[in-house]
């Protein structure tokens, strides 16, 4: 299958949200379900458990598609956060309280230029992760997928997080402005 970029995944997820488009969902499933499954296996789940949970995660993607905000996350990041929550239930880990979400009102559509910029920066970040030196990449991967204690997590990765942060900050400022 042809590799998709961040903006294309956003487009497919929007079709799921707006039109309950099953072809778009199928494409998302074929790309992300095996990745979520691998993520859960790396976190200590069995094959059977991971397969089942990956399906649950994709059902959640379908149901919550309209809550996805493309000015603040890539589709991969959003699915990662859903899988992370599922992993807590599945592996009976400590609860993880979350900050209350800031949500777009029904009238508010995120700015298209913000969306495009965030998605492009997310693509760059993914590329930067892929090109990290092997040792460092494994370290980061173990921090997120494995069971490193937080003192072992690498502090310095040299990844371009600053640009994404500023972009998200801008989106949040606009959102706060729209809400006030």
């Amino acid at each position, binding site marked *: 299958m042809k590799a998709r970029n961040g903006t294309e995944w956003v487009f497919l997820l929007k079709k799921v949200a707006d039109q309950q488009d099953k072809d778009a969902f199928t494409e998302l499933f074929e790309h992300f379900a095996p*990745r979520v499954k691998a993520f859960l296996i790396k976190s200590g789940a069995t094959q059977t458990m991971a397969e089942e949970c990956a399906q649950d995660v994709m059902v959640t993607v379908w149901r919550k598609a*309209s809550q996805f905000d493309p000015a603040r996350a890539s589709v991969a990041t959003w699915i990662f956060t859903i899988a992370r929550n599922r992993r807590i239930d599945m592996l009976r880990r400590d609860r993880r309280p979350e900050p209350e979400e800031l949500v777009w009102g029904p009238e508010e559509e995120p700015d298209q230029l913000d969306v495009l910029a965030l998605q492009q920066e997310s693509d760059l970040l993914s590329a930067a992760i*892929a090109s990290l030196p092997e040792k460092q990449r494994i370290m980061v991967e173990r921090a997120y997928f494995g069971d490193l204690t937080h003192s072992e997590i690498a502090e310095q990765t040299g990844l371009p997080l600053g640009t994404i942060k*500023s972009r998200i900050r801008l989106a*949040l400022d606009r959102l706060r402005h729209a809400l006030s």
Partner: protein
Amino acid sequence: MITHHLSDRLLMAYSADMLPEAFSLAVAAHIELCDDCRARLASFDAIGGGLLEGISDAEGGGMGKDALAETLARLDTGEPANSAPAPRLGDSILPETLARYVGGGVNAVKWRGIGGGVKQAILPTSSAATARLLYIPAGAAVPDHGHSGTELTLVLQGAFADETACFKRGDIEIADEDMEHQPIAQPGLDCICLAVTDAPLKFRGVLPRLAQPFLRI
């Protein structure tokens, strides 16, 4: 204006879901008050997304051959996701995530006096770490203590100062085991903060130490 923020290390550990519940609670509560850390957290979540994207199709062995059909069959059943949101419990003092642990706003906190006008309420988290709300009258000192682990203190009302700096609403102090400090609530409003420890605090001086097992501080 918040000047004391979460560290990269804490944000990354929270994003990767490697923190005990009590620490996650302090991180989440700070983020509700701080858009800057909310944006920084989103950038750490983006690493998780980048890593997920970077997994190859074959790595987890792929999905079973009926998996897609099974999932598609589930899409039209079940309840819609947009059920009514839970009622808000937070107020101008307690962020929503904290209010859920208290079961209401600041008036619902069940304080217990621990001497010197200082009051506390321990929140129901897993035993890996302890989260407590502290109420310190303006001008009063929290008993002098060191830590045997990390302590996070998030100010919710008023302000406190210790040897290092002054902390106001939304500020979070990260103290490690090398630090012995004596926070003093500043004049004005009584100080309310969330304090999280991953090990029992060590009090200096005999009396507080004797009291420690009873107070769970």
